[in-house]
């Protein structure tokens, strides 16, 4: 082959590959950068209401003007239809590549989120790592509210949920996980839920789904109990009270500070073992928790191993109590298998699962769950006994 032929071939190949390139050029200041999308359901012939949180470039210059973010709301027949309608009001092209959070309103979630999930799953600009959260009222409310310190509430929510993931404050879910779990058999979704109070956004708990519909709400305490069963924890707090103080009146009611002991959970191991005893399903949950003492206000000598054993027992009791409460709630109130027990049965006893798939909800409601907690207190922080005033 001559050099000219070779050169032509190279040029031809390169020109052909040009047609494969899917992106086109646009300057950053010709884009409306979306950082949050909220979807709500409203009555009427345009039932879908989308609220976008957009970056306001004027506020980012060296001489800032106005708020950092602006919210715009549009209504339409479908999600894509509504997104297109934004161009009626926005001079710049909408860019979803930097979206952080997708928020579903409560009303919409109760009607089912599948029809809206598909758009987000299909759209090329949306990242699969977007957080999905619910609003206790409407998504619009959450986007219009603020987070303390943060200029942009949605990037604040992003940081906040990242901390949730890191320190096990509560269950969280990303878009890709949502889409994957939706396809699972024998596992219901739990999505974090936020509320708005005095124009500030705060975490409330989690929304519990059955199929794609929201059926109930757990507060943050039960959400954490749920977390114990969902995954291995790192971080997280357990507070118990000294012997003699009123055990049942735990965290919420009393306003007087009691003599309490707090533990920081260092790491946990969790195992869900499904069993079939005489054809009847039963679940054994094994939990092993290691923790460190972060606060100790009791009288017993911490240098005595017996005290530690006692504390370990108390911690185990507390953990067990929390988990039991959550399971009770899921079985009695929601009747939705958020723990994935069904999935565990499907894996271990596929034949049983095939037969009982249809009436799993009934089985779950009456499922016997045995909980075994092994607790260890391995550290006492950097001191041993607390200060005693003399």
């Amino acid at each position, binding site marked *: 082959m001559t050099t000219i032929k070779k050169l032509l071939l190279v040029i031809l190949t*390169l020109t052909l*590959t*040009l047609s494969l*390139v899917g*992106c*086109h*050029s*646009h*300057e*950053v*200041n010709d*884009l409306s*950068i979306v*950082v949050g999308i909220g979807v709500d359901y409203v009555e009427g012939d345009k039932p879908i209401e989308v609220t976008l949180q957009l*970056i306001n*470039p*004027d*506020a*980012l*210059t*060296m001489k800032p003007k106005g708020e950092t973010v602006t919210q715009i709301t549009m209504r339409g027949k479908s999600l894509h239809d509504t997104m297109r309608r934004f161009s009626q009001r926005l001079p710049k092209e909408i*860019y979803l*590549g*930097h979206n*952080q959070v997708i928020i579903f309103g409560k009303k919409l979630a109760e009607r089912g989120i599948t029809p809206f999930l598909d758009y987000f799953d299909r759209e090329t*600009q949306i*990242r699969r790592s977007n957080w999905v959260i619910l609003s206790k009222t409407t998504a619009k409310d959450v986007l219009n509210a603020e987070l303390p310190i943060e200029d*942009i509430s949605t*990037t604040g929510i992003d940081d906040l949920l990242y901390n949730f993931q890191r320190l096990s404050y509560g269950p969280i879910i990303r878009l890709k996980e949502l889409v994957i779990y939706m396809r699972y058999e024998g596992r219901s979704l739990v999505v974090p839920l936020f509320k708005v109070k005095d124009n500030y956004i705060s975490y409330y708990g989690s929304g519990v789904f059955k199929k794609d519909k929201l059926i109930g709400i757990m507060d943050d305490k039960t959400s954490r109990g749920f977390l114990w069963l969902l995954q291995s924890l790192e971080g997280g707090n357990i507070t118990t009270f000294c012997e003699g103080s009123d055990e049942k009146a735990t965290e919420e009611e009393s306003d007087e500070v009691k003599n309490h002991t707090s533990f920081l959970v260092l790491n946990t191991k969790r195992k869900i073992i499904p069993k079939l005893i005489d054809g009847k399903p039963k679940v054994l949950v094994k939990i092993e928790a290691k923790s460190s003492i972060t606060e100790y206000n009791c009288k017993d000598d911490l240098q005595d191993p017996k005290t530690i054993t006692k504390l370990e027992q108390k911690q185990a009791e507390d953990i067990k109590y929390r988990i039991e409460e959550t399971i009770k709630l899921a079985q009695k109130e929601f009747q939705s298998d958020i723990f994935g027990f069904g999935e565990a049965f499907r894996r271990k006893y596929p034949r049983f699962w095939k037969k009982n798939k249809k009436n799993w909800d009934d089985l779950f409601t009456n499922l016997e769950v045995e909980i075994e907690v092994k607790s260890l207190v391995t550290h006492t922080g950097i001191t041993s006994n607390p200060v005693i005033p003399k």
Partner: protein
Amino acid sequence: MWKLFKKRKSKLLNNQKSEKVEIPITSDVNKTKKKIKSTFNNCSDVIYREISIGKNNLPAIIVYIDGLVKTGEINEYLIEPINRLRNIDIQDNFEETIIDVFAIADMKTISNMQEVFDLILSGEIALFIDKLRFAYVFSEKGWDSRNITEPESESTVRGPKEGFIESIRTNTALIRRRIKTPQLKMEAFKLGKLTKTDVVISYLDGVVKPSLVEEVRSRLRKIDVDSILDSNYIEEMIEDGPFSIFPTIQYTERPDKVAANILEGRIAIIVDGSPNVLLVPTILIHFLNTSDDYYESFYFAFFVRILRLFAFIIALFLPSFYIAITTFHQEMIPTKLLMSIIGGRDPVPFPSYIEALMMELAFELLREAGLRLPKTVGSAVSIVGALVIGQAAVEAGLVSPAMVIVVSVTAVASFSIPAFNLAISLRVLRFLIMTFAAILGLYGVLISMLFLVIHVVSLRSFGIPYLTPLAPFSLSDWKDYLLRFPWWQMEKRPLATETVNQVRQNEDRPNPPQKSE
């Protein structure tokens, strides 16, 4: 067209070719004098000194060019001894008597007039004596030249502070002083039909690959041009890949660098009138190394070399990368970084590419202006540059602050590349890649990178692939080229230069005596 052009060119060359003419020297000194005077017609710097030798007043004439010889020494060692012969009767066979009186070591007898002319022009003294059919030529060259100073373009923190100057003898002496062995050869050439420039190739016999020396010789012999005023004339003539933007011959002003490279089996080409000595063969990595690397701690040198590689990549790709990701791939920028980029870019009315082009051109202009101006005015240029480009342009909303940072980081990176000629080619290439990036985004950057790599891999310098320790992969050469191992670990010369004698030192590092048992 091309053929026609070529034909015309070769015709021209043939016309210019001058034959070496043999003009015998006549025994009549008056005739000789006439001949010289007609040759050096209108040359006011040629000095004729008529003199008579001995009792019988044998006429003689001394010819030299004023300014090229040490006049005081002519008087002392040439004219005075001749005057002392005044009382002596000059016989027919007087050559021996006369030779004894000259107190100059470098003396030759030459019978070809043309050759004598050439020698006079290069600063030697000719003595014609009546009845002799040859001339005595003395070498007592001495002209004003620059002092040996520290080379400004390649200064070091540690290490010798000597630099080459414009006089070739001084330069060869500077090398010879570093390598004291008869193996160090200094082959002389005279190139340029009118300038008759002295060119010396210097190499270490017994180390250098013989065919390499032969190649350099033959390339130099093929040069047929009327003038050689700087080493770059030769560089461009003998370079492989004459159209390549990458330099394939290295130049340096440092004698220690030349010595070190000669010891590694490379060849130095020293050109009279130029303080820049050429080194062949050259690979890309040579341009990224400095002599400081060998004089400082090897940890530091190691670090700096890696840093320079990064600088190389930044100087070439940073602006194009910035253009590509801000105009095509916004999703690649972390959200919070994007916020600050948007904030800066919001008031800017131009596309990123135009913005980058403006800034880069403004920077190149400032650099060029600063380079050509006298040093005292040069600082004024940099003040204007810093104020206008750095601050005013951003405040006026013509340029975004992020772009200022990108351009200045690129500038700093390109300044930290030690070889000026490589930095120039990177600058030109940068504009090209920026255009690709503006049209096609990162895909364009990749395409240009592809072309660049294809080109660079195809380059050779005197038979050695340009990307040597990388492209024909040779891990042992990384010791000295890419990284910098301690001296006691570099037992062999680089493999790239294919030296005949590879061993540099024994394998043992000088150690304190080991305790027996």
